[in-house]
């Protein structure tokens, strides 16, 4: 069997499983006639003025949030790339992974600590509205975009920089001819991912948005499934959300140009250090302060809280165990599924079928916007007649979290894997290097760094999950985000801030560990 075929089969299997996980629950929800007292509402409701308003707002805030997050992120990532010896660079970059893991309600508190009426930079009432939504979304997504864009600079071969120097290129020319082509490869994917994250944002938008004017489609889905108990409506809205994202995806991917990959054996891809540094240093400092402030306020709150009371609690340690277990298991599936999808997509794009390759990446990413509430509820309908759902809580939670982590894997691993494939595929064929040996001797050494980032991102995302785990309810021990949520719901706000700090520290450790163990010694 040829390599291409086995790749196609593996990717096909992954796609089939994805489709099953996403579509079967929806079908289950649409087919609920047997439920007592349930009459499906008018399915044309989505043309109502309410839904139109919600659609417009969701799209608008997501677009603005995406631009406000990703455009500055390009500058910040560039600054990091051009300053490889910046002090504390490694720590800062790991800090940049933290917002991803912070449960929305905790992030809202952090943002309010900084910009609220009693905060360091008080914005007063004007915080609640678009300002607050943008601040929170940029806090979540700017650092993520930096992490995803930064590796692009490492794909610029060193002799390009040298050539630029010899030709006397100024900063603008270097950007235009050396850096932009590299950034452009990853940018559409990052834009799409951030757009999806902002589009599906819920608690942040509702709470910081100041009122029901700021209602996203995700809220409407939640409302129809929970409040109105109309699963069919929820499915229609979920499909609507899926279509919007597909449209946006098609538009952003038009922007993408996959650069020709040079066959080069340079392993040291460090750019030459650029001399005019002050602006870049400023950029890093501003971004660091922006991301650091809400985190710092959480730290201060936590140290003012009942630290020892929370740490001394034995169930806390069980929760930590649970959180780690769910996070790491979900990451294994996410990275595994992403790996097979990307392998096939890389070989498709090598043989010139870039359209198909993009479609494959898209399929793996877009599943993110199907709300876990819809998938989860649908799984209940399908599973509960046949199995004891309680015994299935972990597998279900891990599956849905793995699904949610997949776009992060595709974004962080995709560009590197594609380049690697383009560089070495024919060499491998001529050497008959395939299967395990190819992974062991070629792919692992060259891809372990993006693999480490992918695994770390997927783990962090699943560790911070609240939506899925809260939905299923655990008969036994909670995860850390659930524990935070329980504490917040029981007036124990000081305790919750301590638990939130522990979640942050745990993620930082896991991130560091995974990037170290999988990614190897070098810093990102």
């Amino acid at each position: 069997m040829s390599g291409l075929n086995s790749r196609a089969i593996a990717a096909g299997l992954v796609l089939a499983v994805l489709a099953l996980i996403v579509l079967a629950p929806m079908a289950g929800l649409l087919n609920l006639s047997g439920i007592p007292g349930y009459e499906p509402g008018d399915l044309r409701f989505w043309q109502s003025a309410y839904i139109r308003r919600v659609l417009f707002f969701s799209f608008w805030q997501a677009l603005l949030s995406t631009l406000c997050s990703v455009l500055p992120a390009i500058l910040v990532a560039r600054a990091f790339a051009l300053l490889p010896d910046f002090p504390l660079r490694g720590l800062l970059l790991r800090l940049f992974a933290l917002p991803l893991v912070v449960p929305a309600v905790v992030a809202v508190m952090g943002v309010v600590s900084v910009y609220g009426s009693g905060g360091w930079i008080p914005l007063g009432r004007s915080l609640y509205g678009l300002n607050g939504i943008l601040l929170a979304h940029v806090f979540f997504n700017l650092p993520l975009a930096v992490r995803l864009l930064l590796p692009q600079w490492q794909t610029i071969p060193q002799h390009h920089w040298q050539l630029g120097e010899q030709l006397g290129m100024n900063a603008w020319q270097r950007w235009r001819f050396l850096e932009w082509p590299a950034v452009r490869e990853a940018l559409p994917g990052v834009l799409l991912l951030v757009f999806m994250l902002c589009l599906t944002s819920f608690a942040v938008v509702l709470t910081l948005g100041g009122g029901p004017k700021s209602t996203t489609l995700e809220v409407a889905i939640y409302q129809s499934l929970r409040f109105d108990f109309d699963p069919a409506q929820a499915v229609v809205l979920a499909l609507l959300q899926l279509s919007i994202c597909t449209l946006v995806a098609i538009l952003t991917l038009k922007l993408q140009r996959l650069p020709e990959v040079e066959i080069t054996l340079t392993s040291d891809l460090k750019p030459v250090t650029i001399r005019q540094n002050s602006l870049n240093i400023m950029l890093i400092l501003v971004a660091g302060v922006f991301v650091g402030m809400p985190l710092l306020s959480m730290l201060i709150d936590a140290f003012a809280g009942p630290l020892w009371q929370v740490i001394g609690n034995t169930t806390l340690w069980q929760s930590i165990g649970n959180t780690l277990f769910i996070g790491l298991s979900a990451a294994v599936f996410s990275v595994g599924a992403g790996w097979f999808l990307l392998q096939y997509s890389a070989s498709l794009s090598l043989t010139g079928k870039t359209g198909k390759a993009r479609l494959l990446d898209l399929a793996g990413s877009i599943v993110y916007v199907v709300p876990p509430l819809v998938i989860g509820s649908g799984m209940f309908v399908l599973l509960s007649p046949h199995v004891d759902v309680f015994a299935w809580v972990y597998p279900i939670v891990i599956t849905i979290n793995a699904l949610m982590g997949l776009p992060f894997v595709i974004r962080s691993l995709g560009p590197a894997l594609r380049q690697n494939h383009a560089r070495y595929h024919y060499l491998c064929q001529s050497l008959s290097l395939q299967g395990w040996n190819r992974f062991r001797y070629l792919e692992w050494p060259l891809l372990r760094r993006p693999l480490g980032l992918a695994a770390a991102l997927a783990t962090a995302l699943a560790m911070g999950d609240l939506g899925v785990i809260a939905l299923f309810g655990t008969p036994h021990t909670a995860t850390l985000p659930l524990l935070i949520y329980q504490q917040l719901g029981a007036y124990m706000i000081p305790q919750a801030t301590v638990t939130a700090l522990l979640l942050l520290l745990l993620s930082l450790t896991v991130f560091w560990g995974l990037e170290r163990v999988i990614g190897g010694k070098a810093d990102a």
Partner: protein
Amino acid sequence: MHKVFRLFSSTALALLLSFAVQAATPTLVIYTYDSFTSEWGPGPLVKAAFEAQCACNLELVGLEDGVSMLNRLKLEGSNSRADLLLGIDTSLTAEARASGLFAPHRLTMKKSSLPEPWQDDLFLPYDYGYFAFVYNKERLGSPPSSLRQLVEDEQGPSILVQDPRTSTPGLGLLLWVKKVFGDESDQAWARLSKRIVTVSKGWSEAYGLFLKGEADMVLSYTTSPAYHLIAEQDARFAAARFSEGHYQQIEVAGMVRSSQQQQLARDFLEFMLSDNFQSIIPTTNWMYPATLARSELPAGFEQLIEPSPALLLDEQLVASKRKAWVEDWLEVMSQ
């Protein structure tokens, strides 16, 4: 081969034994909300106390809230493992009743501290409370003395409320305003909205923002100050007493019709009404127990305001109008 066989047979034996043990001690499964099952909620104490008398296992499954429990039960239908639902409130009972998934409890409440006598063949109350605006006495010297004053005073305090689409207190306020203002509710919301700092997804966000000092008052319960007083020895917080009365929330439990453990479920409901269970409620769920008199509550509760009259809309009316009222609210609040 022998070894394998021996391993197999001993595993089978172990499995059989565990089934036998399970058969001897029945398990009662209760769907409830998260904060009930959490460590500091009533769950662990309730479990220990009931297991001490029932020769059974009590499994408490914590879901997001009352709405989630009921929806989950509807989705699972007769396949549900739940024997009881504990934690739906009076704005949901009509919908729960209409689902036909509950069985009559056939018990009577001998003792009750509810403002009105309880009459319901499907559901029994275990605790109740009143919605109220909570404030910090050091920050707000003279709180409004009525809902009307809160609404009409343009210089009045800033407030934090919850969204009726996603939160129980949020829905409570909607009904409270409806009860007091009737047909003029929309105008009332329009006036009030200028002083609403934000409308949060759930109670936790709003209360957290309030403690951070984002507004003068937050929509919560009359019993909230008891937590600060008893658990934190902090006397700064109080609930404002409104002269029109306060909207009531009564939390109830009901037996699931498809349950195989009807008798055990009934035993639990009886236990729920006993002093044993009821005395756990005040300092774990921070609500009024349904059967204990005020004099039987822990020290600190006597400092709370005593709302009068207790307001409650008819459950059928709520069930039939809720959707339309929320749509009206959305319209006014989105201006």
